[in-house]
């Protein structure tokens, strides 16, 4: 093939140029550590790297959110622990107060101690996050959730809840949000009184009189929860719609201690009050006997037999006219439990019958306090399980992060061994091209003529 002189130069220069640009490119790769200098170098990997980077960043954000949630839950957990400590203190005082040998003045002293405890509980319940939000107020971050209502002449001031039930959610994983708070209503307000299904109480013997016997009712037991719910909701034909309650009334026909169950529910106001109606036969009573909550008839209507699936035990000996009521549990706040106890302790014990009633009331207060403690315990368990979930998520996230890191590195990072070997290769070929260029351009016939 015929070669023109310019071809010799062109080809030589072109090859040198090509080697040089390769070398510069490799040098840039080596100095940046990046395999792709522009997306054009590997468009698929570039796009993958972009989406992966987002996934990695999002995952990192979830980790940050988890940390935030963890901080808030730990604070909540600490406050719950303090609340438990205070309430345990209250409980031991209550147990102490249950002893009927205490003088009124001693009980007053306990009452003032409990008052201080109540303030402590209110203080804890109104704790704030470092950012200034109230911890237990639901969505109402800036509203102090637990405040005393204005005191009126008829009643001591009660603590009311001004927050709401809102869950403060944090996104802790792509498809998982986690509440970082406990609503104060669930924690301290909506606590079932009594045994959780119903509450028992001695209700007195005639107008203004306490029960005259020594009978003390226990908190009762639900034997069959389904029957209880069924009877309460639809099985039993209550005569009224409000204040639904059963009353156990003691009589002594022919000198034999007996009881009879009454329905004392009332129509909704402003309808006039109606008298209680007997819903069981008069049944003989032995001290310490379990009284099944069963109705056998409701004259004058047709006899209806309803089994509430529950029983109460009355110890001691009630006398004729003594009454005990069984009400479905209402909600009682921990504050009103303590406040009621304080009021109880401040009341002088004037007679043995009052003492009997006092024992029953202290018993109920202890029961309610235990319910509150159990409720806080449950909440603490819920916080604990959320913290546990966060730890699991954190483990997952760090594993995932490592995975992302690895894949990103595979996509983006330079294989140094390969790159340096390539560099050496191109360096050698550039040197060869340069040397041969000089030699070939030195060849000329003109040198010999």
């Amino acid at each position, binding site marked *: 093939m015929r070669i023109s002189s310019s071809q010799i130069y*062109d080809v030589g220069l072109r090859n040198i140029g090509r080697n040089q640009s390769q070398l510069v490119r490799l040098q840039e790769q080596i100095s940046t550590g990046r395999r792709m200098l522009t997306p*054009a170098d590997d*468009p698929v990997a570039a796009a993958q790297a972009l989406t992966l980077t987002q996934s990695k960043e999002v995952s990192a954000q979830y980790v*940050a959110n988890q940390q935030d949630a963890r901080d808030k839950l730990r604070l909540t957990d600490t406050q719950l622990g303090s609340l438990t400590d205070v309430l345990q203190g209250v409980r031991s005082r209550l147990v102490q107060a249950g002893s009927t040998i205490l003088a009124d003045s001693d009980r007053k002293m306990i009452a003032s101690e409990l008052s201080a405890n109540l303030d402590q509980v209110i203080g804890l319940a109104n704790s704030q996050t470092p950012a200034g939000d109230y911890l237990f107020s639901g*969505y109402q971050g*800036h509203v102090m959730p637990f405040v005393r209502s204005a005191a009126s002449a008829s009643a001591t001031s009660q603590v009311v809840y001004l927050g709401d039930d809102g869950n403060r*959610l944090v996104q802790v994983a792509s498809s998982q949000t986690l509440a970082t708070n406990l609503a104060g209503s669930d924690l301290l*307000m909506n606590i079932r009184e009594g045994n959780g299904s119903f509450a028992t109480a001695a209700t007195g013997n005639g107008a203004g009189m306490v029960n005259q016997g020594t009978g003390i009712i226990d908190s009762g037991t639900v034997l069959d929860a389904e029957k209880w719910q069924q009877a309460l909701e639809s099985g039993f034909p209550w005569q009224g719609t409000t204040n639904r309650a059963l009353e156990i009334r003691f009589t002594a026909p022919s000198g034999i201690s007996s009881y009879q169950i009454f329905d004392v529910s009332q129509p909704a106001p402003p309808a006039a009050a109606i008298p209680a109606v007997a819903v069981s036969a008069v049944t003989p009573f032995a001290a310490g006997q379990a009284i099944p909550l069963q109705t056998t008839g409701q004259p004058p209507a047709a006899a209806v037999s309803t089994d509430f699936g529950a029983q109460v035990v009355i110890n001691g000996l009630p006398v004729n006219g003594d009454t005990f009521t069984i009400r479905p549990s209402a*909600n009682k706040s921990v504050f009103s439990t303590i406040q009621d106890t304080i009021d109880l302790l401040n009341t002088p014990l004037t007679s043995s019958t009052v003492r009997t009633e006092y024992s029953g009331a202290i018993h109920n207060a202890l029961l309610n306090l235990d319910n509150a403690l159990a409720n806080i315990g449950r909440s603490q368990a819920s916080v604990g399980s959320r913290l546990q979930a966060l730890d699991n998520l954190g483990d997952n996230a760090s594993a995932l992060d490592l995975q992302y890191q690895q894949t990103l590195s595979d996509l983006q990072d330079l294989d140094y061994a390969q790159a340096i070997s390539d560099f050496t290769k191109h360096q050698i070929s550039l040197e060869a091209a340069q040397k041969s260029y000089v030699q070939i351009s030195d060849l000329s016939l003109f040198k010999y003529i």
Partner: protein
Amino acid sequence: MATSGLIGTGITGLLAAQIGLQTTEHNITNANTVGFSRQRSSQASNLGLSTGAGFIGMGTHVSTVERLYSRFLTEQVNRSQSGASQLDTYHQQISQIDNLLGDPSSGLSPELQRFFTSVQQVADNPADLPSRQALIASAQSLSTRYIAIGDQLAQMSRAVDGEIASTVSGINAYAEQIASLNQRIIVAQAPSGQPANDLLDTRDQLVADLNKLVQTRTTTNTDGSYNVFIGNGQQLVVGVQVMTMTAQPSSSDPSRLAVGLKTITGTQEMPESLLDGGALGGLLTFRSGSLLPVSNDLGRSAASLALTFNAQSALGQDLLGQSQLSAAPNTFTPNLFSVAGPQVIASLKNPAGSPDVSAALIDPPPYNGNFYTDLTGSDYQLTTNAGGVTLSRLTDNKQWTGADLAAINAQLASEPQGFTLSASAALVAGTSYLIQPTRNALQTLQVNPAVAVDPRLITAAGPLAASANASNLGSAKVSTGNVGPGYPAAAAALPITLTFQNGQLRNFPVGAQVSIDGGTPVSIAALTDTVAYTSGATITLVGSATATPPVGFTFTITGTPNTGDTFVIARNTGGTADSRNALALARLQTQDTLSGQSATFQEEYARLVNVTGNKAREVAVSSEAQQALLAQSQSTRDSFSGVNLDEEAANLIRYQQAYQASAKALQVGSTLFDTILQVVAR
């Protein structure tokens, strides 16, 4: 006689050798002249003198000086050259976009991520003003980044226009020179009929240079002049005549330059598809194939971000407790972003007084899990004729035809493109409008100034909350619930207190529509109307019946309520620690918000980077291949036409020897003559 013949023959040899030497020197001196074809003197023997002893040779003469030129090889070089120039230009241009989008620190990606991170931070601490301020700041820097990229693309578009204009004037200049060389070649060649080699080389070089700008074809006339054609046969040069090319604003889109050809009848706009090859072809394909699609796609991402974010933002409640439920006057600000709507450009050829057409972006459609837009990255063309109106999507030429705009809009309702059309008056036949739905969005994405100055207006909370009454005795729990579009209609009479009675929920507001688990809504005619209770079922007070499943206010009651238990739906007054809406806003990052719910912002951006990177790679690879092709065809031509100095050195020796030999012959002749003279003198 004999000796004078001897001298005469010697002289012809001397002359021929001289011409040979001159041609060789010409070659040597032009060895580095671009476009030079080596020349060769063609020698032929003179006609012999007829004598009785036969024909006696009379020496030699140079018949012509020819250039070693192959038309075929030259055209091959020109074709490769125009291809290489096109790809080279395209490559230079697209590398800029490729770097712009793909740079890990300056692309859109990090800003998008930072923006959503700060949304999450607001969700973590909704009442925290510094977090809200940080969200505003990152929204602003996101919008700045969109605008900066938009500016850069707009600047590239202007630069491309500038280059098109200068390329066109370059083409015109070459065309003029070729025509003038045609003239000189005709004049030079006419008298002698010998080729004007160096003029021809110059002209061929001009054609080669022209092919760097645009691909041409040439034909040769009998008088030696060239005709030059571009496109599919449009004349640029015919003999000594030149048609001028023009670069003027396109009649369909005056914002960009179109190339035209000035003819006797006027300026004719040339379709871009015809202008292939060369720098001009590279610029035009880059503009239509990469620059405009990228601008549109990024604009779509900006518009979709604004639309979806605003739609979700409108469903929230700000730190001041304001929402769509707030009584007037209020400062509730539903939109975090503002963005410009579609641009409609009426063709310059439309008859005077044609109605104006406008287009509007559609708010994200109600809502199947999350907000999204149906915008595409395409431009659209609306044309009218006597039969009606046609809307064409320019990327794939999908068409919608109808009697009027209302008919088109009706079709767009079922095949949504993210915008609707309207006109100032009934459209007239023979008009054309170009619709650019997203181009403007890229450079106009802004943070709403009202929110920017008051971060409390960011809507992090939900406007409604359901709660269980504190005196409820059952075990049922109620979720606080979520709102969807149209929720104010569902919450007309607040608070709503639902009562559970014997397995049924009642006391829904009269006139409300209630949907259970997304089923067909039931209308409530009276307060005593009941809805069966199922634990854990979603209950929706329907606000917008058109959506499937129905949306409005949705909540869930789980557990066993007791008869008489009540559940209250009320405004979330004071809900400063609520982050429900902020969470929904943050989720937009990972939800499919684009292309009719098929891609996330980040996926869409990654796709764009991928497509651009692929194109850049493809162009780079083709460009390299084309360069190799060019080098090869150049090499083939050079090996035929180029000067080899060694060869010329040999020729130099050859002609020198020929010259010396002829001179020797002359000397012999002269000696013979002297001999005769001596004889005569004696």
